[in-house]
């Protein structure tokens, strides 16, 4: 690990019989710790830097507004994290969120708040379909979900008649935009997703199955891990998260639209990677994505607020996102970087 990265198994620093502490390099755990907190450090540094130009950012209101803004992106990115951990990618999340927003707005009159459940279920179903196509037809997930991106947004256009669908019963979505004890409910919903999925990944075998599939799919399959099912489940969860993100989007615009949230795809993937999850799969986690989503939001919103010209804003965003990734990813565990 600290040595050359080519020596993977045959004779790399094996522990001797009288091994004592073994091959754990002294600096190893400190480095791991550094990698663990690096995304947070980057976030804090960004906030501090930006707040020198706009002091409102670091106030309690400013931070809450940031978190509130980040909520839909965070939910989307968490779903994407699961798929990326499995070694795939889901490019359909933003389009699926848009479709969900349309469905949600259309279903509220008949279902009321329960429409949210239905929409999340539909999102999950759409994700499952993509997962099944990916697993059974063995089509690269990039392509499957790229096709999904076009398909879901096409369906959203058709069923909405290409129009914005207003929510007529605001009461039915109030739960998603009020606040509880001063904290916006969208933030709480996002946190709930983090907690639930985080618990599933950490406490049940699902987490290690996902990581095993991402690290070494073949080895996972040959240990009897239901690889296909794990992948389909990851896509399903990603779809459901996209559905929930669609609901959150509706709750802040009081309407659903076939292009609502469509621009969130690349920021969501960026959030995953900036958080330190390896795009090649296996390494990373949901907690990291939460921080990653906050970093991306700070970059997107913060930069425009400190009064930089649009052109320079974009350049600085590009430079900072590369810089953030350079600081947060764990290179030592990646033999080949693509």
């Amino acid at each position, binding site marked *: *690990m*600290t*040595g*050359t990265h*080519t*020596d*993977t*198994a*045959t*004779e*790399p*620093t*094996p*522990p*001797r*019989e009288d*091994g*004592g*502490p*073994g*091959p*754990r*390099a*002294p600096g190893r755990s400190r480095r791991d710790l550094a990698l663990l907190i690096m995304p947070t450090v980057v976030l804090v540094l960004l906030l501090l830097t930006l707040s020198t130009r706009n002091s409102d950012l670091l106030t309690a209101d400013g931070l809450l507004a940031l978190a509130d803004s980040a909520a839909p992106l965070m939910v989307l990115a968490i779903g994407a994290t699961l798929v990326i951990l499995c070694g795939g990618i889901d490019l359909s999340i933003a389009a699926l969120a848009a479709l969900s927003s349309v469905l949600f707005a259309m279903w509220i009159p008949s279902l009321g708040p329960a429409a949210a459940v239905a929409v999340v279920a539909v999102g999950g179903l759409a994700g499952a379909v993509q997962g099944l196509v990916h697993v059974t037809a063995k089509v690269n997930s990039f392509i499957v979900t790229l096709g999904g991106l076009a398909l879901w947004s096409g369906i959203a256009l058709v069923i909405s008649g290409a129009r914005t669908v207003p929510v007529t019963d605001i009461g039915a979505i109030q739960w998603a935009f009020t606040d509880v004890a001063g904290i916006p409910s969208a933030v709480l919903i996002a946190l709930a997703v983090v907690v639930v999925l985080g618990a599933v990944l950490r*406490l*049940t*075998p699902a987490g*290690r199955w996902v*990581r*095993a599939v991402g*690290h*070494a799919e*073949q*080895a*996972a*399959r*040959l*240990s*009897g*891990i*239901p690889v*296909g099912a794990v992948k389909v489940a990851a896509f399903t969860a990603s779809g459901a998260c996209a559905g929930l993100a669609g609901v959150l989007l509706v709750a802040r615009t009081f309407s659903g639209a076939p292009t609502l949230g469509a621009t969130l795809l690349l920021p969501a993937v960026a959030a995953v990677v900036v958080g330190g999850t390896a795009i090649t799969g*296996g*390494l990373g986690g949901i907690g990291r994505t939460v921080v990653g989503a906050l970093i991306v939001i700070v970059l997107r919103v913060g930069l425009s607020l400190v009064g930089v010209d649009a052109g320079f804003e974009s350049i600085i965003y590009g430079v900072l996102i590369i810089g953030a990734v350079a600081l947060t990813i764990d290179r030592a*565990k990646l033999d080949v970087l693509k």
Partner: protein
Amino acid sequence: MDDDTGTSTPAPVLAVRGLTKRYPGVLALDGMDLEVRPHEVVGLIGENGAGKSTLLKSLVGLARPDAGSIAVRGETVRLRGVAHAASVGIGMVFQEQSLVPNITVAENIMLGSEGAGVRGGLFRWKRMAELAQVQLDKIGSAVSPRARTDSLTFAQRQMVEVAKVLALEERTAHEPVVLLDEPTSVLERDEVETLFAQVRRLRERASVVFVSHRLDEVLEISDRVYVLRNGRVVAEVNPAEVDATDLHHLLIGRESTHSHYHDDAQQEAAGEVRLSVRDLQTAGCDKVSFEIHVGEVLGVAGVQGSGREELCRALFGAVPRARGQVLLDGKRVKLDSPRGAVLAGIGYVPSERRTEGVVSAMSVKENLSMAHVGAVCRGPMIDGRREHDLVDKWVSRLGIRTPSGDTRIGTLSGGNQQKVVLARWMISDHLRLLILDHPTRGLDVGAKSEVYELIRELAASGCAVLLLSDTLEEALAMSHRVLVMKDGQVTACLDAPRGAKPDPVAIMEAMV
């Protein structure tokens, strides 16, 4: 260049003095001294961890020694990398073949030093082919330089690899030193013969360092043998004067061969049929039928392409579209997925340990409980304490040398990794059949012996074992019966009771 090929110890082409390399926690090389003379084959043996790989890496500039020197033809060099090593005439055939699959043979041979094959920045394919052909001719390989590399057989690729290393000759104006790292570890016997013929030819124009776990092969091919232990040379022997048993002693100081296979532990298999296979049909496997009994080790012998690997994988549900009737304890097993096989009580130890056996980025603990994670769960949750206890139990029971259960398994030696893979299946209460695909491949003598002991224990506990071996000797020694396969069909089935093992020659005849 060097006429002096007599016995009067000519000047060495390669001299290693006091080479020392420390990795965190481990002294990999501890003052290593050895030399390689012109036109000789030097054997290098040692257990895993003895320092072979680190030595070879140092010789091609992939590891930087902390102390000591490497001298090539009398001049001390500090090697900066493979390309630099090549420029002074040291080339290596890597254990993991280092050919790029999707380009031509010629490109692979010339990779990185196309020379006249590229002019004005453009590849001249005809010239490339000619230049590569020169190298291929040296070793008498019939492979076309224009063939795509992944269309070749494994043995052919090994030859291309040798040819690639020989291309050094033209570049250095010296006779090269060729390092062969475990070149035979995945070759079948006939391929080994071909390779050896080439090594003997190679000796005419180069010096060879030959590293292998197979002691008999080292004795057969080498002019001199260095025995390494704990990063030092502990003996230099003349192969004419020693046999494999002596080498075993030197290597580990343990008694070997017969006790090596734990022959005494072979017990009679119980009568009931554990697994019954009827007309199993899959790609490479044609209507195979056989039975395994409770507590029996069934060896499967066959050359490459005999269909025995496919058989193993089909039984584990890892091959698409396998047909046939498979009964496990009388109950029908579907061959559609490894998952189904695992739930039915079948385990599989794949031959490609590093890509298929372990998830090297994950911990020992996670790898160990991977297949039967239910055993450490309470409800849907993993019970951390129970898992910890279970892992501790098996780590100590199998003598797995690891700092802790949380250590990344990729940092362990091959033998310890393999033990974790075995433990993965052994923790199950209802393991009924364990399929072992070359379980000792790439392991050192000591680790092999430990694996054999585990197989014996498993069989004694009633588990049926299907064993594919690296060597016929291993298959015979370990099995109660040996199934011989050829061209996808079973050609013979021989009993191999303790103390009355059949003649390998008879089996060889059924194999080819």
